[in-house]
């Protein structure tokens, strides 16, 4: 009897949580399916009286969403991939070796997390201008990469510490160099951890707004968050377009998450064990 009550309470708790989490999503989805004039009409419609795909058609027609999605994907995936590459190299070294400056470097990584980014935005803009990187996707790829190197290194380091060093030592005795041992033997074992770090990096890149507004001028190079920000106008937030855009922008991350959920949990499990 007692465990049954407990299970009941748990189910109730999960259900309540579900409602609270999903309601905003539900609201956005049905808003995106309402005709413009119904979005703000009273009484509020909890189920659209009339369904339409106009909002979706509009954002592709007027706002060229396919271009923005492409740019966002390109920037987010590339930056996340480069982060993984660079952070894997540094995390491995930080996990396996003790050397002079080790602690200071770890500190340097950690301190970056404390810096309020907006202070650096104007100097960063000047730097990008000096490097002639303004109005190129590369400016975003570089900035996003740099932004995520410290956290990814800290995270990946935890995963490396989980993998026994005997693994690559055995490979090195077989004649592999350290790097090939790292690539051939350790990385495959670490895939779940890498996948979860990658997804974390991807989500951050995919959503970044302020740098993307600053660094990109050209319509053809704009990313999704900037395009969505444009629906906030002087007198009006175009909620039809905004909600349709939100729905579309959530899809890639949700798909990625669903696809890699097993990896993430597995990966984080390994990382978490080391803490």
């Amino acid at each position, binding site marked *: 009897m007692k465990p049954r009550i407990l299970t009941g309470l748990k189910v109730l708790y999960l259900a309540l949580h579900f409602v609270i989490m999903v309601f905003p999503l539900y609201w956005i989805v049905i808003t995106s399916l309402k005709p*413009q*004039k119904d979005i*703000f*009409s*009273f009484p509020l419609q909890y189920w659209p009286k009339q369904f339409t795909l106009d909002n979706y058609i509009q954002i592709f027609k*007027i*706002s060229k969403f396919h271009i923005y999605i492409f740019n966002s994907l390109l920037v987010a995936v590339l930056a996340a991939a*480069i982060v993984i*590459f*660079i952070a894997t*190299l540094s995390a491995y070294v930080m996990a396996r070796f003790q050397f002079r400056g080790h602690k200071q470097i770890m500190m340097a990584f950690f301190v970056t997390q404390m810096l309020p980014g907006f202070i650096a935005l*104007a100097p960063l*803009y*000047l730097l990008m*201008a000096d*490097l*002639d*990187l*303004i*109005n*190129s*996707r*590369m*400016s975003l*790829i*570089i900035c996003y990469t740099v932004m995520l190197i410290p956290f990814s290194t800290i995270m990946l380091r935890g995963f490396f510490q989980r993998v026994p060093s005997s693994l690559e030592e055995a490979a090195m005795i077989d004649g592999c*160099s*350290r*790097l*090939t041992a790292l690539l051939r033997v350790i990385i495959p074992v670490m895939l779940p951890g890498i996948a979860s770090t990658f997804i974390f990096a991807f989500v951050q890149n995919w959503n970044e707004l*302020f740098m993307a*507004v*600053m660094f990109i*001028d*050209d*319509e053809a190079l704009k990313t999704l968050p*900037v395009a969505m*920000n*444009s*629906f*906030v*106008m*002087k*007198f*009006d*937030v*175009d909620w039809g*377009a905004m909600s349709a855009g939100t729905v579309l922008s959530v899809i890639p991350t949700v798909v990625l998450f669903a696809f890699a959920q097993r990896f993430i949990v597995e990966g984080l499990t390994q990382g978490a064990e080391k803490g």
Partner: protein
Amino acid sequence: MFGKPMKTWMLSALTAVMVFTLTTACSSSNDGKKPDSGSKEKVITLRMIESLTSPSRTALIKASIDKFMAQNTNIKVELISPPFDQADNKIRTMLAAKQPLDVLEVRDLNVAEFVNNNYVEPLNDYTGSWSDFGTVTAVAKSVASVKDKLYFIPNGLYQRQLFYRADWLKEAGINAPVTYEELVNASVKLTDAAKNRYGFSFRGGPGANGVPDTLIQAYDADKINVDDAMFLKDGGTIYSSPEAKTALDLYVKLYKEGSPPDSINWGFQEQVQAFTSGVTAFLLQDPDVIQVLGENMQEGTWATAPMPTGPSGKAMISAGGAGWGITSHSENKEAAWKLITFLSSPEENTQLSKSHGTVPIHSSATEDEFFQKGPYKTLLDMTNKPDTFINFKPPFEYPANGQWGTVAMESGQAMLLGQTSVEDTLTKWNEYWAKAKADMNK
């Protein structure tokens, strides 16, 4: 023996190369956009940025630019359209970094800042060559001038008027309010919290200074210095008169008894949404809201009236505006001016005004039937009664004006919440502008 370290080396070098090529790849992608130096036919590339963006307005401007490029094949225009709420910050940053930029949208709010930093070129010497300049209205020139120099050609003017729910007023048997007092009384009467209906679409958030300032000015109308409208003829600020206290008391009443409590935080968007979705009956706004109202409300449910007047039967009105200027570091000023004159021609400007809902800058355009009816008619009526609706120039030349919106918003919210008294608020505002004047004359 050499093999392994070499391999390591090479892979690491590869990393460095990768980073390097990625870095340079971008700069090469930029090369094509710079003004061409070596090609046969010399094509000038103009870079242009707009500030008051919205997807629909951007489309209109783009269409005009395309027309311009078709006529001038040697000029290529690249339009930059940042999101509205971050546009001005981006423009500032670009100007400070001396990024290539030729034409920019200057606003009444930031023209003094741009002039102060020497970012924009005075246009007085250019206007001689422009045949349509003769029909540009005096108001349009005044909005775009700082100390007798013209810094931009407005692309449209903004002037507030009263929008109201004609159907609600009819139902309640109220006439469209003429004075502020009538407006407040009507707002109180129409407020019924249980039905989620309120009188006035109040704006306590960003831009909150608009209503109290014009309200106080209307009450000060007989004393005010029209050429320096934050001050009275006796040299004191508009907040120093006894009428200012009456006016501000009325303003507090308007919020407390005739507006949604939530509106203390509202900006443009909520203010307009409340009106279009049938929460509020009155809205004081610029004409570019007409388009939004037309899209979201049924015809006949709303109408317009002139700005409310003060006890002496007068109202102080002003026009605002934004428009196209040339950066002082532009290398293609002649071409930039050519583009500006094209965009500002009676034909293009009237077209933009009609579709976007601004007051056109050419006197010839007001003869257009379009502006003589409907919501625009009230604006014309106001212009035709200059003794009742006294025109003044807002204090855009004061550096302190840039911060005024924020200061007035925060102290105003504190007053509306009852945290500070009306008197203390007036004292604070009075001090702010007295100091602004002292700093200006330094």
